[in-house]
């Protein structure tokens, strides 16, 4: 793996479609984009994106009125089995037009703004899979991981052997954010945005999230 800074330089050079040079510009002050993808599975190589949602944040405002939302209809005939067999040809022929429709406007929406997400590396890796063949680059944007911000606030000063819970539900609970219907790209992005504005404020004020004193008993169901 190349360090991201070097990769960014490399991509600036390999950018095949020069109209996307704005991706490397300077982000407007205090603006961010929260992003969330719904996918058919967790394998970046074999699974597909079925929905993308992105919401801008400016300062402490979550600009839900200016949002990006796209549903990508996966080819019904193209089951998991079919993808494995016809991987290259099918995606070239059938996936390309769909990605073409959606991605340019997404890239313009994001611009050079830092990307925020929950396990954002996965979402970006999913998108890069489509973006690389189209524009000749991977997303060069700075990444902000909310679970990392949460970890710092809650477990940053924790003694060793503290059991760590970075689940989405745990973050919602600690920040008292009302759960919206999950596994909807827009709602997930919105909740992530709510987490971000609050976690950033807690960080600025140096406020920590209290941990339970007694470490919870191991729960075999994983709930």
């Amino acid at each position, binding site marked *: 793996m190349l360090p991201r800074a070097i990769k960014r330089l490399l991509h600036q050079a390999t950018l095949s479609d020069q109209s996307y040079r704005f991706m490397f510009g300077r982000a407007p002050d205090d603006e961010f984009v929260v992003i969330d993808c719904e996918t058919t599975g967790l394998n970046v190589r074999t699974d597909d994106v079925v929905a993308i949602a992105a919401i801008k944040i400016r300062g402490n*405002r979550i*600009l839900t*009125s200016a*949002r990006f*939302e796209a549903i990508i209809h996966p080819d019904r005939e193209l089951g998991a089995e079919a993808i494995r067999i016809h991987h290259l040809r099918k995606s070239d022929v059938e996936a390309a037009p769909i990605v073409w429709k959606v991605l340019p406007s997404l890239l313009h929406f994001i611009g050079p703004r830092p990307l925020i997400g929950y396990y954002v590396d996965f979402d970006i890796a999913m998108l890069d899979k489509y973006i690389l063949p189209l524009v000749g680059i991977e997303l060069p944007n700075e990444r902000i991981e909310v679970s990392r911000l949460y970890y710092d606030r809650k477990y940053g000063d924790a003694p060793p052997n503290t059991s760590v819970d970075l689940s989405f539900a745990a973050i919602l609970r600690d920040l008292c954010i009302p759960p919206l*219907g999950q596994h909807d790209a827009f*709602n997930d992005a*919105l909740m992530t945005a709510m987490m971000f*504005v609050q976690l950033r404020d807690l960080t600025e004020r140096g406020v920590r999230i209290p941990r339970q004193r007694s470490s919870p008993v191991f729960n075999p169901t994983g709930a």
Partner: protein
Amino acid sequence: MPKAFDISNPPFDRLTPNEAETLRAALDIAYFSPGEAIIRRDASAEALYVVIKGIIEERSEVDLLALLGPKDTFDSRALVHDHSGHQFFARDETLCYVIPRKVALDLIKANPRFAAFFYREISQKLDELANDEEARRYGSLMHAKVGELFLHPPVFLAASDTIETAGHLMREINSNALFVRDGERIGIVTGMNLSKAVVLGRQSIQTAVGTLANYDIVSLQRDDFVSSALLLMTKHNKRRLAVREGEEFVGILEEIDLLGFLAGSAQVTAGRIDRASSRQDLATAAREIETQTRVLRRQGVKVEVIAEIVSDLNRRLLSRLFDMVAPAELRTGSCLIVMGSEGRGEQTVRTDQDNGLILAGPVQGEVLEAFRHEFFVALESFGFPPCPGDIMVRNPAWSRPLSDYLADLRRWIVLPDQAAHMNVAIIYDAQAIAGDPQLLDDAKTALIDMTRGEQTFMAHFARAVDAFETPIGLFNNLITSEGTGDALDLKKGGIFPIVHGVRSLALGQGLRETSTDKRISRLCDLGVLQADFGRDLKQAFRFLLMLRLDGQLAASAGASGTLVRPAHLSSMERHLLRDALQVVKKFREIVGHHFKLGMF
């Protein structure tokens, strides 16, 4: 588009689907850090906010007016009138939907019903709520359980018992239907069956009832819905149903009692009281009064009407008991009075014994003592708990000759001590319910004469309106949704200031009305209060009484959620509560100004 934005949350439920879409498309979400100002004093609001999470403080200068929680909307005044006298701060980490000013104003222009929510005066808002509730409450009536209805006791006869035995038994238990056990079979025999057999069938009254009973009985369970009872009666063309609990028969449900439940049966109870021939009869009626409140509330009857009905029933009950217990000399030579909320006719759920006796002249000690005791014990057995302040007939200080009262009144007004103001308030609210009403009238006339021109006394008297602060605790409870003991806060923060402020103004004018509602009307007529404000004050008062009643009913049912608890108020109700408390605050200022309380 935040799909999560709850369009069913008033006032947004009044938007058309298209308008709702416009609104959703324009929404942003703002985060506020603890202590951050959201709307500053006298600043115009750039937006209308709806709380998603966190707590907002509404303040005027230094006073905390209200705490807003999730789904609360603020601030319509800042939006519509361009500036708000109030400031809004985030108390903790807060997220709000932001409806841009222009979008909100456009919707207000386009949709009159939506606009009404922001523009109209509180009294109209409250009326709208009442109408919405009516539909809901009628529905809930049908979802009551059979066990809540009046059931006749399950009394069994053997098939070999005679018509004569059955007739006597029916009169004894005051029921028109009895169960008949004939071996394995169970039937019902009614008074009509007996009459027909004797009158039309010319049978002897020694005939066994086994042959007259109807064994084709339809039964249902105690915890079945009232609606299914109605269905069964219609379907099987029955006038009565047997009620079981498991396999056991626990009662008989008569059609008349079912219809009485659906239509309300205050007149039945009233009749029962008037016809009562023993204390036992009265005890039964007393229990019915208790259930009346719940039924009437379910039917969506307005709280002031419930209070009127219940107060009337309670007064009849006391009056009847007085007639039974009091010796002749007391019946003519004294006046039984009720005081407090009962005197004002604002009682809905049974409270303490608040009563007293004014004697025309001295009465022999033993006779009086016997009456005091007996009256108290009887009421206690009916379920009226003793008054904690001992303001009862049992207490010699509250059952004595008129001349003693008058002497005390004079002392209370000239040299007021701690209890003096309360005692004056108690007498001023009193109502005569039995005996010679002239005695109370004389006492009140004296009271009004004595207080006339006593500005210092009146100011001290009125000052109690400021005894309790705005009920922040109540709102805290709302937000933490762990609210208990809220009734008291509602009383201190809302009901008491209105009752006492109105009482002070009324005493100042020498009014003879006792109910707060009527006093407000008279004060408006006299120009002491402005008519508009009087209307708002009445509505606010009724709304607070209704909330308190719901709280009391829920508490007595021991159930959570079936009836409104402050923790479960709808956001509409919370909104109205805020408005009502604003009216209370304004009223306190009016009273303070009237009595020049600023000098204290």
